[in-house]
């Protein structure tokens, strides 16, 4: 699977890979929010959270970034959510 570069919103080569990893889900959610696809973005965000939790203990260093994404989601500041997912979380997953 060709991973999407962290600074781009390019989709994976295989359609199935979007749902495979926390990283790909974070990028998919970011992409959706940047396109104004709120429902799709929140669906992918929920899947990302589930995948992150399912993958085991969440690394402590992600705590701050996750907190910022949660805060931005509470404000419905979708581009801040996208920034957090794409630039702060995805590169560390």
């Amino acid at each position: 699977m060709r991973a999407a570069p962290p600074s781009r919103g390019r989709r994976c080569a295989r359609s199935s890979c979007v749902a495979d990893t926390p990283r790909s889900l974070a990028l998919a959610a970011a992409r959706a929010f940047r396109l104004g696809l709120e429902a799709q973005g929140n669906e992918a965000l929920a899947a990302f959270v589930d995948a992150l939790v399912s993958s085991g203990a969440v690394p402590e260093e992600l705590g701050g970034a996750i907190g910022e994404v949660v805060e931005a989601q509470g404000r419905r500041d979708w581009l801040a959510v996208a920034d957090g997912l794409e630039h702060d979380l995805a590169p560390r997953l």
Partner: protein
Amino acid sequence: MACARSARSASGSPAPDRTVLDGNARIARRRWPALLEVLESARGLDDVRAIDRGAATLSIGGVQLTSARDRRAEARLQARLVRAGSREATVYGVALGDLPRELLARPELERLRVVVLNAAVVRAAWSRFDASDWLADERVELVHGQGERELGRPFAAAPAALRLAEDACARIRDLVAIELAAPYVHRHLAAREQELARRIEENRPLLDVDGDVGELFGREAGGPVVVAAAGPTLVDAIPDLAREGAPPIVAVDASLVPLARAGIVPRYVVTIEANREGLLPLFDFDARAFEGSTLVYSPVVPGDVLRAWPGPRVAAVSAHERFAALRRGRERAALFQSGSVIHPATDFAVRLGASDVVFCGADFGFPGGRTHVAGAVYDRAADPARGGGAWVLDGRGERLPSLPNLRAYLRDLEGHIAGCPGTAFWRTDARGAAIEGAPLRPEFLRG
């Protein structure tokens, strides 16, 4: 023609800069003087903050106008919504101008319509960020969203501009949001098609003997017909609906229990609900008085609900392909459907031949903080968080909390009303959503 991009367009000014604003305004004054007057008269915004985490942007009311990390990559992604090779395109929302710039870099683009969704936001952006490069591009037409009646295609949108749209741009904002959400909605609806096809087959014995809605067309020709929806404001229409001589009522299923409790028997009842658990409570009342009421139903409605109806039944398909086999087997009239029972109920009222269609309880939001009319099965306190901040304008011009799907239903209803020029539409309560094409006329039912 590639657009030159000044440093000021990228880095911006942390504080309002008169020089930057004047430069942008000079071009706008020359090209769009009336629009500039609107921008200059817009109320100033209180909560505007400069943010830069790699890319300078603004946060307005806690909402970032663009990415604060990589604006150009974001604009490139958004521009992909406009197919390469397009000669014309529309951009909804100005933000910081990155999206217009990205599209204007395409030499084949001949015309770009940029729609302002919030004059105050644009003024705040123009006070800090140089927009002269794309404003001066002769291919650009800058307009205010208030005057936009139809969606321009192809289009791309600045998401934050949709989020921050001013009241006057609510309608075009909703049309853009509906279009952006369409693939997601269709994907989820497609997952149910097998189940719905099974339901239609299960109902075949009923469908073979029941009438078709087309047989009722013209029955109420020349007079008014009330469409009773289940919004909170229906309660205040009930006394007028209960009086002698009130117009015939086409009631949506969710309004049945409160109407029945008030002793009101609608002449027609419309139901399209396929979910059995959700539908059964709506018909849980003593329906003996409804022996003369005709049930207009979609073939996907559970058969046991249909069989329990005491009065006549007629089936009503829609243009959806799931009903294609039914339409082949027998001549069937199709009612307009677009997600809410209010749509076929309204179309049915028009096809009955009504001179006037009067909406009662068609609120598309939560007046008084309630979800439905008092006494309705699903009436409860509205949860402000659930709607994600969605709102529509009510009849007083104030924001009415709503849900994204209710907004979509409202816009689709307005589109349908616009296509029925031979019928007058009215609504009776200013606390519900303003419905374009259905002016407020509270006294209509009082004779």
